[in-house]
């Protein structure tokens, strides 16, 4: 819905409040929750999610969706770690570049199908999800790449620290900042919103709609590739069944962040909050000492609660806006 900037901020406050409450609750259950170490772990484990949700936000802004990223993560991770295991000497940056390249190719393929041949995003990416996953099995021959086959440099991509901050957190931070700049302060960034907000208008306004859409999926792929490398380095292992179903978490995070599936609306600040919320759900539940069999139910419940709170807050703002509006 169209909301005045004010109410938009309101709604993110709602999400923020929700997160704070959740943390409070967790802290009560387990006093080690709000410790530096734990928060460090939490952020590190959320970094990959955050990186991908940035891409997913752009995709969803254009009214699209990408189901293939889980497979892309696996493929990129597998390719880069296979290379590393073959030539240990390789510089980490090269590995990253390699993974990103792989991801970009997959993304570009998505973009081609969707922008050039107008295949519905859900179909194109659903198909590629299978194809890419299968390809990963094939190139790996079903084998895993294990810790001892990876160079320390490669593992350091995920475990190393820069100024005391772990690389994944740092990378995610940089990506998010770059994203804010791109989406809020560049022409192309704004055109992404425009395309999602009103495709027809975008055409008559001379916005290269198809190119924008293609670009968005390519970026998504690139980020998935980056995420794949970090994933492989973080767990010091590359499997062909890595990140099965991860796309759903990413979509959930993006939508929790208030990015509307209808396209055109959503803010980076919201995205970050949504990602953090999901990060907490994925990583903190083991901490609250409930039976593992309750974890899923709780996770789902919280997600639903968060989404519904968002809606209710939004409705409230609208009502408020109506009351105070001069007809």
């Amino acid at each position: 819905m169209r909301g005045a900037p004010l109410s938009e901020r309101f709604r993110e406050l709602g999400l923020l409040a929700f997160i704070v409450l959740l943390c409070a609750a967790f802290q009560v259950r387990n006093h080690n929750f709000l410790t530096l170490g734990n928060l460090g772990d939490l952020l590190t484990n959320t970094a990959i999610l955050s990186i991908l949700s940035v891409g997913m936000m752009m995709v969803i802004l254009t009214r699209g969706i990408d189901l293939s990223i889980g497979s892309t993560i696996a493929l990129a991770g597998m390719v880069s770690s296979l290379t590393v295991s073959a030539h240990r000497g390789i510089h980490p940056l090269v590995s990253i570049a390699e993974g990103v390249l792989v991801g970009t190719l997959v993304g570009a393929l998505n973009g081609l199908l969707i922008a050039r041949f107008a295949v519905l995003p859900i179909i194109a990416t659903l198909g590629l999800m299978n194809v890419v996953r299968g390809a990963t099995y094939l190139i790996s021959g079903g084998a895993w790449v294990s810790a001892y086959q990876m160079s320390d440099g490669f593992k350091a991509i995920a475990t190393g620290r820069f100024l005391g901050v772990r690389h994944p957190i740092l990378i995610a931070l940089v990506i998010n900042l770059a994203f804010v700049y791109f989406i809020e302060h560049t022409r192309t960034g704004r055109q992404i919103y425009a395309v999602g907000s009103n495709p027809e208008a975008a055409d008559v306004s001379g916005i290269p709609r198809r190119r924008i859409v293609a670009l968005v999926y390519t970026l998504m792929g690139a980020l998935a590739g980056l995420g794949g490398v970090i994933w492989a380095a973080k767990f010091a292992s590359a499997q062909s069944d890595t990140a099965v179903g991860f796309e759903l978490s990413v979509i959930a995070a993006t939508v929790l962040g208030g990015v509307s599936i209808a396209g055109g609306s959503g803010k980076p600040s919201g995205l970050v909050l949504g990602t953090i919320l999901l990060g907490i759900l994925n990583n903190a539940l083991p901490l609250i000492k409930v039976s593992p069999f309750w974890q899923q139910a709780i996770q789902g419940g919280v997600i639903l609660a968060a989404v519904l709170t968002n809606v209710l807050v939004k409705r409230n703002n609208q009502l408020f806006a109506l009351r105070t509006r001069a007809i």
Partner: protein
Amino acid sequence: MERTIAIDRPWSWRSFFLQWEWLLVLIFVAVHVVNSVLSPDYLTVDTFLETPMSFLDKAFLVLPMTMVIILGNIDISVGSIVALSAVVMAVAFHAGLPMPLAMLLCLLVASACGLVNGLLMTSFKELSSVIVTLATMIIFRGIAYVILEDQASGQFPIWYSALGWESFGGVPIILIAFAACAVLFTLLLHKTSFGRRIYGMGNNLTASRYSGVRTDSIILIVSTLTGLMAGVTALFLTSRMGSTRPNVAQGYELEVIAMVVLGGVSTSGGKGRMAGPLLAVFIIGFLNYGLGLVNIPAQVLLIILGLLLVLSVLVLKVRFRERAVRGSGSLPVEKVAARGPEDAAQ
């Protein structure tokens, strides 16, 4: 000046043969040809009478999912509903409930889950169905875990296993049941005012609402039907597995959606026919089986299915290209979600 309006249906062989279903029929035939070339064991009566048993369980989900997608929605919670209802049935049975009642309970629980989805969608129109069912997907399976934890539950009466394994007059019971459901759903969708309204809502929700279509009740009915069929799937699946666990039917949702989409039903709603998905069920089923006979590795199978999906849709796209161009060639827009705000109380 009095002008008259004709009531003869426009007909041309071209448009008749330019229907998506024909491509599917082609693929269907191709699959059988390839399979029988590849494997000597393929062309047998068993293949056609026995094989359906092994892939029809999730096919029951294709029927309502087609409606859901034509409606412009999507439901990714079906797999979880199957698991939950199956688990409840098993537990109820072991708690002493007679099997027939337990089965009834299974259907009830499943329908209830569907209804919950529907209620959430209708009372929170701002939310797209993807989000709602994404959440309930996690919740329903979560509940299944809470109930059965790390246990499996089985030892059902012998006669129950007949459901998934026995034949009636040479035809598998499951096939008969599926045929029956398929006919019912096809008629419901294509021959009744209910089905007509579904198409209307998929094409233009607002206009349908202004035209006096009770959009909420239709959404409720469809989601409940979806739940019900998930229950039916649970019945047959459990019968085939002889026991059940909280982790059954994982990832069914995407498989089912893939079949519906391959069947030529557009995820932007309002378009497509039941025939397509039905064909798709058997195409994928027999393809799986045939390639299994020559022991194709699972990963290759994945690739083939993926390609099948994308390429077939590409063919469709290209075929209707010139029309797309005249329609300003606008990119596909996921009405699935677009309806959210459009319909939200203003």
